[in-house]
């Protein structure tokens, strides 16, 4: 009898793990499903726009030469929209996307214009602010609940979503505990399609689960980080490091000019200044000075560590580089924040990785669904069985009476 209880102990423990695994996502499965689905769409939202809107495509002509430089983008805007103010230029390199310039008009409206990177033709315009890409991200990331409402500084939805990282991570761990010798599933994959829904979804759940171990780990850990990031922000912890005050051009370095705005160095000159001093910087985004005391900000993804982008502030009057944030210069928290975000979105290599993220996103979304299906069929059957037993008992009592 003693040996019998010893043998039962591990079984009971497994059952307990199994119960935990079953209950982790069940009460929230539909919400989790929605978040996984919107997240999966968000991964490829830019590509979806590309599919439906030809104006955001790069469309190289037959005799495609060099891509337009930043200066040439400004020339295009000045020619097509005289008097407009250019705020930011995005110039994707080796990409299927058009150049984007964010411009502001004298009537105080603003637009994103999409420029063919080879011909300089303005292919399309979109009001800045609302766009599909940002909309999907906002649904997925914070359910459109506004930020800074006085209750929390981040959106409350941010926490509702990011807290899901915890049950997701626990589901992964408990799932691997209850799936005995799960590594065998890699060698002997099993997906029985002809044995009914319960068997199919069970096989699918396990097969997709083991192949998604790294993906689920990445998504859940980064989601938990997003929650921590929000809480740190609420607590007033500075991400840029306490010593990082905003950098401005000192007043005495800003020239006085009788004839209006003095000439600034051009964007290409600013980028050349960065490239002269630093190796391996590929400028992808250029922000023009926001005030008379502001800098050109040159942003590029690090070639050595693509999870983090690098940023340089170039004095628009003297061309001196007043701040350089390379990978190694980022304070620890900022480094973590940038890396975690890139890992979560999968947007740091290009289309290929985005498609991988999309694929595993679909799998994860279906895992939430299949988990629910398994739970429902099993639990429903158990409940039915329990009711039948009870009925039989009642009947037996009635018969004997």
């Amino acid at each position: 009898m003693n040996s019998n209880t010893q043998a039962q102990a591990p079984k009971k423990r497994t059952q307990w793990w199994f119960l935990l695994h079953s209950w982790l996502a069940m009460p929230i499965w539909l919400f989790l499903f929605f978040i996984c689905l919107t997240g999966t769409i968000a991964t490829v939202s830019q590509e979806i726009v590309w599919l439906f809107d030809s104006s955001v495509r790069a469309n190289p002509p037959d005799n495609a030469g060099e891509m337009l430089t930043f200066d040439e983008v400004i020339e295009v805007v000045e020619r097509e929209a005289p008097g407009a103010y250019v705020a930011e230029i995005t110039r994707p390199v080796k990409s299927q996307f058009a150049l984007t310039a964010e411009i502001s008009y004298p009537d105080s409206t603003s637009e994103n214009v999409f420029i063919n990177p080879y011909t300089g033709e303005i292919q399309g315009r979109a009001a800045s602010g609302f766009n599909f890409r940002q909309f999907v991200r906002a649904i997925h990331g914070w359910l459109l609940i506004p930020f800074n409402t006085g209750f929390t500084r981040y959106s409350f939805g941010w926490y509702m979503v990011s807290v899901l990282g915890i049950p997701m991570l626990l589901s992964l761990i408990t799932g691997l505990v209850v799936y005995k010798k799960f590594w065998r599933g890699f060698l002997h994959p099993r997906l029985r399609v002809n044995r009914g829904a319960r068997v199919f979804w069970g096989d699918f759940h396990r097969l997709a689960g083991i192949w998604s171990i790294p993906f689920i780990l990445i998504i859940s850990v980064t989601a938990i980080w997003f929650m921590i990031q929000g809480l740190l922000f609420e607590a007033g912890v500075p991400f840029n490091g306490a010593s990082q005050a905003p950098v401005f051009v000192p007043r005495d370095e800003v020239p006085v000019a009788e004839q209006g705005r003095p000439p600034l160095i051009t964007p290409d000159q600013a980028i050349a200044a960065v490239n002269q001093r630093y190796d391996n910087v590929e400028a992808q985004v250029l922000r023009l000075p926001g005030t008379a005391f502001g800098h050109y900000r040159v942003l590029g993804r690090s070639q050595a560590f693509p999870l983090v982008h690098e940023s340089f502030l170039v004095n628009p009057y003297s061309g001196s580089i007043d701040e350089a944030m390379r990978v190694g210069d980022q304070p620890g928290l900022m480094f973590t924040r940038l890396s975690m975000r890139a890992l979560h979105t999968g947007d740091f290599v290009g289309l290929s990785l985005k498609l991988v993220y999309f694929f595993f996103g679909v799998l994860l979304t279906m895992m939430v669904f299949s988990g629910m299906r398994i739970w429902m069929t099993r639990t429903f059957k158990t409940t039915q069985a329990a009711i039948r037993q009870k009925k039989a008992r009642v009947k037996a009592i009635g018969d004997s009476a």
Partner: protein
Amino acid sequence: MSNATTKKGRKTDSRWFRWRFHLSGLLMLIPLVLAPFYIELMSVFGGASGLGARHIGTQAAGPWQITLAEQFEQAPKLDGPAGYMKTFNAALCQTCAEQVKAVYLRLGKPRSLRTAGVIGFGSPYHMSFSMPVPENTALDAELWLTLEGWDGSLQQVQWPLRQASPATIEFLQQQQEL
């Protein structure tokens, strides 16, 4: 008869048993309900609807002209340790955009250029000012805009706060009653 009622009871129990696990789906209503507000908010941020939610007016400042708007018709918002902040937007006329080096905004008359207030950030056609509003601000306070030319010349215009942002006046009244 009693058997029938228990049967019925079990039936609803079972349905409730199944459906309560889908209730979290109701959270999907949040983005659905908030979508119009989100779209409205983005159009204000993006400047698609112009300078801001509420135009305050246009004034001549010496040779220049400046238009002021409230970004939202709302009370100042608490922004952590920075205290209560209120966002105004301003636009320079197209001809003077090239002449004006910077625009500053503050509550009350500045004593010098050093204390002219927060600097307008962004396009000269859509400068944004995030201005601190102390809770003890007088209800008859004035908004002072200081325009600094590239040639070093200074121009000032003011708006009564009551006219510039009734929502802020309401907020201050509430704060000061407490």
